[in-house]
């Protein structure tokens, strides 16, 4: 169990202090930056990924 914990901690160090990125007066934590990037990626994917059953629906139900 301890080995699993140490492996998990090495992959995703949740108990150590957070990392920050600074560019002039802009400072953001890496965790927040990752979430923002994931939200943008999800937004773009939601626009371009075809919805299941869309072609079938187009002909019929309104």
């Amino acid at each position, binding site marked *: 169990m301890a080995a699993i914990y140490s492996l998990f901690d090495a992959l995703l160090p949740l108990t150590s202090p957070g990392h920050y990125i600074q560019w002039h007066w802009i400072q953001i934590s890496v965790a927040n930056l990752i*979430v923002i990037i994931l939200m943008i990626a999800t937004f773009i994917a939601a626009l371009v990924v075809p*919805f299941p059953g869309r072609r079938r629906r187009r002909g019929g139900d309104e």
Partner: protein
Amino acid sequence: MSTTEIDRQWTTKFRRRLTTALPSEKLLPDTQPSYVASWIYVFGVATLSSMMVVIGTGCILAIMGPLWWHESSVGHFVNSLHLWSVEVFFFAMVVHLWGKFFMAAWRGKRQLVWMTGVVTFLASVATAFTGYVSQTNFDSQWISTQAKDGINATGGGAFFNVLNTGQMFMWHIVLMPIAAVVLTGLHILLVRYRGVVPPFEDTSAGKVRA
């Protein structure tokens, strides 16, 4: 009681107005317009679903109390579920907000739908904030002292005292959830009343079916 008297009752008038504006088939429709078959239309429901998990786990935490969520493994698990469902809630809500912003979802007399969404977002931020200062751990101590400094800097006073754990806890588990649920309910009823906003190409081609 005569029919005229019944017609004059405020309850009768209110019921008629309500059932005319939102008949059952409009309140819970069998089909949706074809343009709703897009992933961008999924995030409103994703927000609502995660909100249900937030409320459900919050109810369990309220029943069991802080000692339970700090000391037992099941308590830790439910506490984590509460936190991560909030993360999913805000994630989905932000994607929902971007989607609706870029399709100008206030079109077609939907201003109130948009504005209730905006106020719900702000109420959710306040609910989450009071939650962060109600954790009863070092994280909540740090956040509340930083927030108190911030509020002091604005001259906000101590009516809303973030260092008062009891007050913040009550705001988090009573007042803010009531506000968030009522506003969300109103937002959904308005979406049902006005219909889901169509994409631009559908309105320009005159094919609006809302």
